[in-house]
């Protein structure tokens, strides 16, 4: 899952990074972080469903996770 790869590439360049994922890819994300030498790296997992939501509903869901994103990017 390439967004994990991208996240690790940012970290390697000294840029704090995180990734937003869906539930279906949680195990893949955990594996990918471990395989790329960043075992335990945090991520933000959106609740199911995602793909079938309207854009407005997607905005509403996303609003609830911005704090978590910020916590993962700051000390």
């Amino acid at each position, binding site marked *: 899952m390439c967004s994990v*790869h991208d996240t690790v590439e940012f970290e390697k360049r000294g840029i704090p990074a*995180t990734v937003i994922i869906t539930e279906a890819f949680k195990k893949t994300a955990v594996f990918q972080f471990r395989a790329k030498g960043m075992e335990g790296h945090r*991520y933000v997992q*959106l609740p199911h469903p995602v793909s079938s939501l309207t854009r407005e509903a997607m905005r509403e869901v996303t609003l609830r996770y911005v704090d978590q994103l910020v916590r993962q990017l*700051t000390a």
Partner: protein
Amino acid sequence: MRNGLGFVDPTLAAGKSKVELAARPADLAGKVVGLLDNRKEQADVILQTVGDVLRARYDVARVVIRRKEHHSKPATGALIDEMAREVNVAIAALGG
């Protein structure tokens, strides 16, 4: 791979060299935030929303959005390098 068992075990050895977490800033005030959109459905609205909130509530200086070629491919080194020169933190979406 070799063992005392009389056959070869080709199981991939676990473990890679560790990558250290980049140092985190205390907060995002005045920072430039990079948002990497992998073109998966909903990634654009998710990142747009994140960018809006970061500007409104977290005092970030600027939000930079870039789009990848396709969600099933990693970003090119050139794209990551370009973003890394411009941003202080980054968020990738949507892993799925």
